[in-house]
């Protein structure tokens, strides 16, 4: 059996919409379980009280990363058929900064805003409206933004490719960094909690 299953014709594009729904179901469930349907919890990351955002995100990343590595190592997953968003370094750096600011101003990101809306958070709904407005604004202003948006194209490139390191080495390094990060996060949380005690 070869994966990605859709690309190997195991099911058609109509069925893939059902798959999309089911995956979304899992996604939304996991997000809310982690408490990401709450802006308060999300922004607590950036006030250093609660490092859940960092922990959840990076645990998810290394889980999926290890899964992908092992599955493609045994030949079940054809990694070249998994879509890799092309790298445009400058707009992604700038976009990341803007997105980070938006995250802390609004208290959500698109996925968590949807989760928040589902659980009744009105600020999540308003955030979503802001998302649409911002998207429309971007579309209207595109002629001005196009030079930035298409700057520094680097094609589809991974970190192992860029640093010319074996894939497994980078995977191991990322796992180490994550574990270190988690330990650090726990330490920071404890420090903040201690300093809050009267």
């Amino acid at each position: 059996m070869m994966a990605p299953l859709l690309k190997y014709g195991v099911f058609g594009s109509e069925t893939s919409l059902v798959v999309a729904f089911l995956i979304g179901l899992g996604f939304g469930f996991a997000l809310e379980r982690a408490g990401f349907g709450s802006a308060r919890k999300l922004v607590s990351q950036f006030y250093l009280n609660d490092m859940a955002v960092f922990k959840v995100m990076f645990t998810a990343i290394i889980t999926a990363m290890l899964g992908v590595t092992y599955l493609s190592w045994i030949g079940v997953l054809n990694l070249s058929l998994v879509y890799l968003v092309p790298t445009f370094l400058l707009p992604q750096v700038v976009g990341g900064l803007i997105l980070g600011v938006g995250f802390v101003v609004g208290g959500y990101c698109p996925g968590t805003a949807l989760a928040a809306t589902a659980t009744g958070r009105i600020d999540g709904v308003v955030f979503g409206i802001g998302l649409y407005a911002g998207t429309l604004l971007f579309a209207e202003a595109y002629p001005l933004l196009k030079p930035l948006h298409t700057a520094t194209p680097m094609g589809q490139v991974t970190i192992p490719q860029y640093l010319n390191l074996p894939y497994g080495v980078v995977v191991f390094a990322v796992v180490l960094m994550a574990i270190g990060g988690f330990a650090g996060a726990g330490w920071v949380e404890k420090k903040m909690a201690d300093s809050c005690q009267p």
Partner: protein
Amino acid sequence: MSDTQSSRAPAPYSNPYLAGIGLGLVLLAAFVFVGRGLGASGAVSAAVTAGLHTIAPDHAHSLEWLSGRLVGDQRPLKDWLVFEGLGVFLGALLSGLLARRAFVTVEKGPRVSTRARLAGAFAGGGLMAVGAALALGCTSGQALSGGALLNLGSWAFMMMVFAGAYAVAAFMKWQWR
């Protein structure tokens, strides 16, 4: 706290690592089944494209960034991300109901007005949309999915998100007072 009170209180959040593993497995499923990652900002642009196309089709076609989605007999709403978004909504609702965390409210600090917080939410959403459009993704699409695939641009993006957020956090504390 009486027994009945504590049983109606919202359940505590899950261990973040366990939630993260769950999220990671969902992401892996997306890779294995469909060969793409999760993504949320794309659903928004698909919806904007569809909405604009309904109200003002000529204008929609004239916008370069959106017109690419209107090629041929493509119907933007019949997009993978939209069905995924539907699932996210229902999945979160389910989890919220199970954990007694689903109730209509505005998340904000006790001493700030609802209007101010909602203004903040709106502004944040607008900024985030621009950032996600520039970066070709948001935290789910770029950071999570691209991160797991060791995509160079995704990791750069992710670091910048944290940088930007931490830089501005102090100025946004007022929403949580």
